[in-house]
């Protein structure tokens, strides 16, 4: 499979305020190297503050790295013109943990899902509506949802809308940032099935960020373990989780409560 994303030697630090006038440098990412091939599902695990989300933001081109190189489809996003970067951005999308925070509650489902399409393409209102209806069908929502707002929906339904919105431009890479952490287990099962099904039918590439090792094991072919800004271990999911080598991964696996039925 061709390489879709290559992150090499990426460093990132933030200046944080330490009292009124003192500033302190906080190294958030140190020497990060990641390669994602087309069609892969990669898990990125680690605790709060380990740098998972910062890495995702750098990959998406939302913030620049201090040093190092991020190549998406062979192109360095930061080196592109504004228009060029905008064009590349349609190939990536992100789904956040909590749809009630990430989606505008005042927009209808039609407008939420149509927004990325409107930003990149010109099409008639009727064609747009037809496309959105198709996307909703992909995520298992009926046409009757078009004019509803997410405030009147359950967590699982709202997350489906967020997924439909992420799929709107048929992106090459979808970043899933804790996509089921806010959901009940029964709803989580539905959303995980949906994501697996979409990948099987459309060949999407996933970068799945989560702290839930069971979810990673269920979804990801390979896994990267982050701790304190570094990737401490990576490899095939089952190999890493069955016999973790790094002390941090060992602690993570040991601390995860075992599913009572397994």
């Amino acid at each position, binding site marked *: 499979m061709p390489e879709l994303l290559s992150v090499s030697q990426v460093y990132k630090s933030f200046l944080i305020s330490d009292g009124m006038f003192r500033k302190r440098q906080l190294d958030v990412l140190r020497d990060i190297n990641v390669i994602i091939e087309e069609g892969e599902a990669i898990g990125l695990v680690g*605790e*709060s503050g380990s740098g998972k989300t910062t890495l995702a933001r750098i990959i998406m081109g939302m913030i620049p790295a201090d040093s190092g190189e991020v190549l998406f489809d062979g192109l360095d996003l930061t080196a592109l013109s504004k228009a060029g970067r905008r064009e590349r951005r349609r190939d990536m999308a992100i789904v956040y*943990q*909590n749809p*009630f*925070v990430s989606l505008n509650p005042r927009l209808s489902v039609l407008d939420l899902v149509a927004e990325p399409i409107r930003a990149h393409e010109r099409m008639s209102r009727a064609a747009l509506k037809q496309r959105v209806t198709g996307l909703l069908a992909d995520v298992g929502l009926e046409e009757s949802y078009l004019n509803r707002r997410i405030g009147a929906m*359950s*967590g*699982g*339904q*709202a997350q489906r809308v967020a997924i439909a919105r992420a799929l709107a431009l048929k992106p090459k890479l979808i970043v899933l940032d804790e996509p089921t952490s*806010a*959901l*009940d*287990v*029964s*709803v*989580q*099962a*539905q959303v*995980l*099935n949906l994501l*697996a099904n979409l990948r099987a039918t459309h060949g999407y590439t996933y970068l799945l960020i989560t*702290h839930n*090792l*069971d*979810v990673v*094991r*269920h*979804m990801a072919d390979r896994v990267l373990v982050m701790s304190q800004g570094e990737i401490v271990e990576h490899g095939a*999911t*089952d190999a890493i*989780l069955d016999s973790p080598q790094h002390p941090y991964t060992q*602690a*993570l696996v*040991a*601390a*995860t*409560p*075992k*599913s*009572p*039925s*397994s």
Partner: protein
Amino acid sequence: MAYIEIDNLQVVLELATGPLAVVKGVSLAVEKGEIFGIVGESGSGKTMTCTTLLGLTPNVARVSAETLSVGEHNLLDKNWAAVRGREVAMIFQDPASALNPVFTIGAQIDAVLRRHTELNKKARRARLLELLEQVGLPDPLRTAASYPHQISGGMQQRALIAMALSAGANTLIADEPTTALDVTVQAQILALLKSLRDQLGLTILFVSHDLAVISQVCDKVAVMLHGEIVETGPADAVLKSPDHPYTRALLDASPKPGSRGTVLPTVAAQMVLHGGSHA
């Protein structure tokens, strides 16, 4: 008579759209020193059941029961001042929002001690440091002087447990106490709750949607669905070989080693309320 006795508890919300029964005839008996799990999904009534033990149900709620008692206290008397903090205390999911951001940890626990005890200033200070040490905070003096944002989520939850115990409560309601925490921190908080039960003889009602967590800490468990208990018994037995199809369905819906590439069985539609959210 069990330490916590709930018999035929009904909670009805009087909404503008009409009455809505959210707890429908729940009966529970929890022995002293037990960790009793209540598991269920959003909207199943697990939190509402627990808040009736503190009189913290919303204003629109109408609560009735044949028996509702904790220790010596008959809660149907509604003598909440004698119950809250002194007999029953509660900790919540998100410690950061349960603490007041503009007061130090020490000041917030001291406020509880002033309200509920006769201790003088010096004795309160000693008790404060003792409590912080008891919940495993490494540097009690420093933690007492810290504001909530200066300490980690795990330390915040420990501080809240110290606050919950400060007025001498024998019963702790823990409502999703580790859902907002990282797994390694979760493991520490679960160990702390178990050791407090062993040391102090605390009775703990542990509310969670996470079956794995429940199986790790609880002696007994009740599974709630649509405001009713569908199954109850020793945690091992219920979660290893459940009798009720809903419990079975919840277990099957959780991803587990070996489930990759398979479709996760979803809980039958008639069993799901409205697939809510914990956030």
